[in-house]
């Protein structure tokens, strides 16, 4: 192979590797906070690359079934003052993002922070506090919310 051929091959390989590492993905997940053990949350739904959810690394209960993700996590929540804070970061580029958080009844939101590009809607459903967060064409989206007893 000539030098120019090797160079072309290397350049093409670099482009392929770089472009694949930045591929957009989709996320649509629900997060249910346990009301008996406030540190525990169930994450259910679908994300193209579970490695983009770093908090899963701290979970020893993860199951994937036909693209559907089930995980019990105790690293999403931490006590903050008299209430709780939930941090939900994701790494990578997401062309579609939809996360819905369900907090047990008897609480109210104190603070909701979402990175740029995310829109949210809060409501109450049958006694559960619900935060619906959506966005498109996002880089490293993150949601952080705090809640306390109402």
């Amino acid at each position, binding site marked *: 192979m000539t030098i120019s051929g090797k160079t072309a091959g290397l350049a093409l390989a670099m482009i392929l590797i770089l472009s694949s590492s930045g591929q957009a993905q989709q996320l649509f997940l629900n997060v249910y906070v346990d009301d008996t053990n406030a540190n525990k949350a169930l994450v259910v739904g*679908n994300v193209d690359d579970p490695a983009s959810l770093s908090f899963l690394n701290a979970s020893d209960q993860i199951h994937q079934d036909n693209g559907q993700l089930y995980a019990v996590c105790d690293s999403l929540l931490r006590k903050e003052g008299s209430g709780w804070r939930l941090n939900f970061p994701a790494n990578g580029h997401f062309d579609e993002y939809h996360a819905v958080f369900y907090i047990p009844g008897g609480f109210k939101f104190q603070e909701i*922070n979402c990175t740029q590009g995310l829109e949210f809607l809060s409501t109450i459903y049958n006694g559960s506090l619900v935060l619906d967060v959506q966005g498109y064409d996002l*880089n490293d989206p993150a949601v952080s919310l705090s809640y306390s007893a109402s």
Partner: protein
Amino acid sequence: MIDVCKKILYMVLAGLVFVGLTGICLAEPNQTNNADGNRERMNPERAYGMMPNQNAGLPMGVPVDVVYSGHGFALRGNESHILRLKVEDILPLEPGQIRGILASNKSLEEIRDDIQAKEGEVTYRGSVILDHSIYPLIEIVATPASDNTTSIKADLADLDLLSAENGNATLGNISVRVSPSDGGMIGRGELNLGLGPHAGNYSVLLDMEPPRHENGRGPADMSR
């Protein structure tokens, strides 16, 4: 001649590498939005510490798949507004049911089995985002037709009226006809909002995403 070709080739390859690297590196910086600002834009009447309105009519459940997704514009006169439409398949499970399963100390496989036991009852959940406002959808009906088109109709939920269990708990409605166009799919239709800051009648034009997964749904009426 060969040297010239080599130089041109090197320049082209360098340009391609530069374009590839630039596409990765030009990411928007992360910014934490002020939750107050977001909330004021989205729900002016919902301030810090207040309890959001209750609602009993929104479909709730575990997401399975994105069935329809499109982005484009809602047009009214000489106004154009960014519009997103999303419809997802969900397994209808209430948050209380999920927490009951979670509290039962079952294994994750057992939790999965309990959730998937609802597989036969898959229903739709959806929303429209108009500019920066999320409008949940109810009464979603998707009707595929024989000419590779699909009609999507839904009501936009009025969360305040839903909380009062008012039978007419809608802010408006949307209807979109999805059809093939130039190798892709487009959605054309109408969006009607009777209340709120976006009240008005709009024509809708959406670029529809291809199906995420082919789930083998038949052509029958799929009202949920």
